[in-house]
């Protein structure tokens, strides 16, 4: 069925969970600033109590890290909001479909991968910044090139939003990637190990040192642990143009863009 009602209807999907025919707006509308801004207001009022105003999670799960939302297509995301999610605390929201679609647009934007953004920077120059003057590859690697103390960025464009990337570069202390906090460990033998804590509880901890060695400590052998509480990464000291180039380069990093190297 085709129709000419507003929102440039593309198709009508029978959606069993909703029990009704759901009208799916055009993809351009769902990525438009108009829908995202409208959805943000609705989200803050209806969803913020559990997911946080910015969608980064509180009592309810984080919707910005991509892990949850990217598994759902738009109709399933719509149905989750309209009908709730059985077996969880997520209730259904009986609001007009058009408003729910605006919330869908906002929620989708939270984890929209950078590779889908059209950035203006120069990718080759960004590569030169990453592997050269910027010093990024001293701690990060892409496809095996670089060092491993910081998170691997081979898939950064596919898993991070532009906003997250920009924040990581300009304000790295704003959030520390899990498993990448700086740590200093003193053993009962008196020896010291410094690196990043991949994991820690009261009984064991795992530390990756700067030479790429993994230390698996039993807590009984440890005298003290000092966590820096800061990101080991310094804020990028780059000119605006270099930052733009670096963002453009990082936004292109995706492990799935490469087809087979040699097909027979």
């Amino acid at each position, binding site marked *: 069925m085709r129709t000419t009602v507003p929102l440039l209807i593309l198709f009508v999907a029978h959606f069993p969970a909703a029990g009704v025919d759901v009208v799916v707006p055009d993809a351009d509308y769902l990525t438009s600033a108009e829908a995202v801004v409208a959805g943000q207001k609705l989200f803050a009022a209806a969803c913020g109590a559990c997911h946080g105003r910015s969608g980064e999670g509180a009592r309810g799960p984080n919707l910005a890290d991509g892990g949850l939302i990217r598994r759902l297509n738009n109709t399933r995301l719509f149905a989750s909001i309209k009908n709730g999610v059985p077996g969880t605390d997520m209730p259904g929201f009986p609001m007009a479909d058009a408003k729910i679609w605006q919330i869908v647009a906002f929620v989708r934007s939270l984890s929209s991968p950078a590779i889908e953004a059209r950035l203006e920077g120069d990718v080759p120059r960004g590569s030169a910044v990453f592997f050269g003057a910027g010093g990024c590859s001293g701690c990060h690697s892409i496809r095996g090139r670089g060092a491993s103390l910081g998170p691997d960025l081979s898939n950064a464009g596919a898993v991070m939003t532009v906003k997250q990337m920009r924040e990581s570069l300009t304000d790295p202390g704003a959030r520390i990637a899990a498993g990448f906090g700086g740590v200093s460990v003193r053993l009962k033998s008196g020896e010291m190990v410094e690196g990043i804590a991949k994991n820690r509880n009261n009984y064991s901890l795992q530390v990756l040192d700067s030479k790429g060695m993994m230390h698996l400590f*039993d807590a009984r052998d440890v005298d003290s642990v000092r966590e820096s509480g800061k990101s080991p990464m310094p804020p990028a000291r780059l000119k605006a143009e270099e930052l733009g180039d670096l963002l453009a380069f990082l936004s292109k990093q995706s492990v799935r863009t490469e087809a087979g190297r040699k097909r027979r």
Partner: protein
Amino acid sequence: MRIALILLASVCLAQQAPRYEDVMASPGKNWLTYHGDYRATRHSPLRQINAGNVASVVPKWTYHVDGATKLEASPIVVDGLMYVTNSNEVTALDARTGRRVWRYREANAKLSSVNRGVAVMGERVFFVTSDCHLVALHRITGALLWNSRYANSEENYFCTLAPLAVKDRVMVGVGGGERGMRGFVAAFSGSTGEELWRFNTVPKAGEPGADTWDKFNTDWGGGGTWMNGTYDPELNLVYWPTGNPWPDYYTGERRGDNLYTCSVVALDVNTGKLRWYFQFMPGDYHDWDSQSIPVLVDADWKGKTRKLLLHPNRNGWFYVIDRVTGEFLNATPFVDRMNWAKGMDAKGRPIEIPGLVPNANGVKICPSVRGASNWMSPSWNPDTKLLYVPTLEQCDVYSTSSQKAESMLGFSGGGGEGIPSEPGQFYLRAIDYRTGKRVWEYPMPGPGTMWAGTVSTAGGVVFFGDDDGNLVAVDATQGKHLWHYAMGQKLTASPVTFEAGGKQYVAISAGSEIYAFGLFEPVKPVPVIR
């Protein structure tokens, strides 16, 4: 940030990258391949846990894999780091504590299927995504090194197996034989991800073996390669088991032997060239993939030590083959519910009983579609010289369709259906390879739905997953119960054993969890670290 470095070899467990020589010597303290060793004997020299003390084994840790329902991986363990997989993800755990060290997820894979684990070699960990990308990760950090697509999931391929790493190369196979595709084994450079060779298990028109397909379009002939092969370093041959011809239950146009389906193919690891093949089921219509593990042993055969390949096939026959030449030596039934073949000719070709061909109304044939055994791992104890085989006694009603075979439409040519009045029953059977006779068997009451395998140890114990969610230990000589632990989940993986921090563990993937077991020790108090 500059980080000072002080090396501490005594506590730095995971610093030795496994070399080819280490993998050849596996299993020792480590468990370095899906089968533990290249030859798939799945026998560990560890004896800290043994028949005398296994009754004191307790769970040491449990790790929940988010979102998992059907874990099939054999955990791989390298110097205190354990690698497990679920669909499109690899997790590295501290093998002594079960704490996660890193996780790699491929959220953009186009399919989600089961996965049987990683291969390791040097600094790299290899795994396949469900949509058939072979991926190399750094073993310590989980960082991506390369990603090579080797089959197109839009052409019916999907991938589940643990890769097989030998020297500088990594070998993989494909699933999809139930939907129509051309099976193959491919080798990739471990360092760059470049494809080195590819062997098609179903020949293209004009290639050797194509004449065994009559007029059938071999583009869709099947011959999946969804279990990893086994490897003889001395012969430099890999033995890869192959799956059913497509459509699975079809008795229509594809008359002939349908090479190289339902076979084991011996391939030169350097070139991928076929050295020999042995076909268990010529022109099969039972969906009897030959993916049971080819176990390689050097043992006496009629007074002479020979390089043997032992294979308990889904068709209910236990085969002994000379793995140098592919010569058929013997086959004996290892199930009682067996009605389709009365024997084998001198070359190992089945002598079928007339009338037992699927038709539109259905025909009772034994074993069942699931097979007398399947991909559940057997194990071989060189001391007892017994092969321990998870075995299913079951028959099905097989039917076929007269519909024309069309690929990409989900056509499988018919099907097999259980008989409600004759439920299946699993057993662990200890088979004497010389005669094919059962020396002992251990029954497993249950629903008949498990896919769990075994591991054998020099401690005189066989560990295996049973049909009711238990990890069980029996003594290797007589099959007597020694210990069990209920994990409460359907088991779809085989146990492994390894040593970390001086202690032996037994580990298994169970549904949605990884379990590790060891000998009981009182817990010493742990002071809180400030």
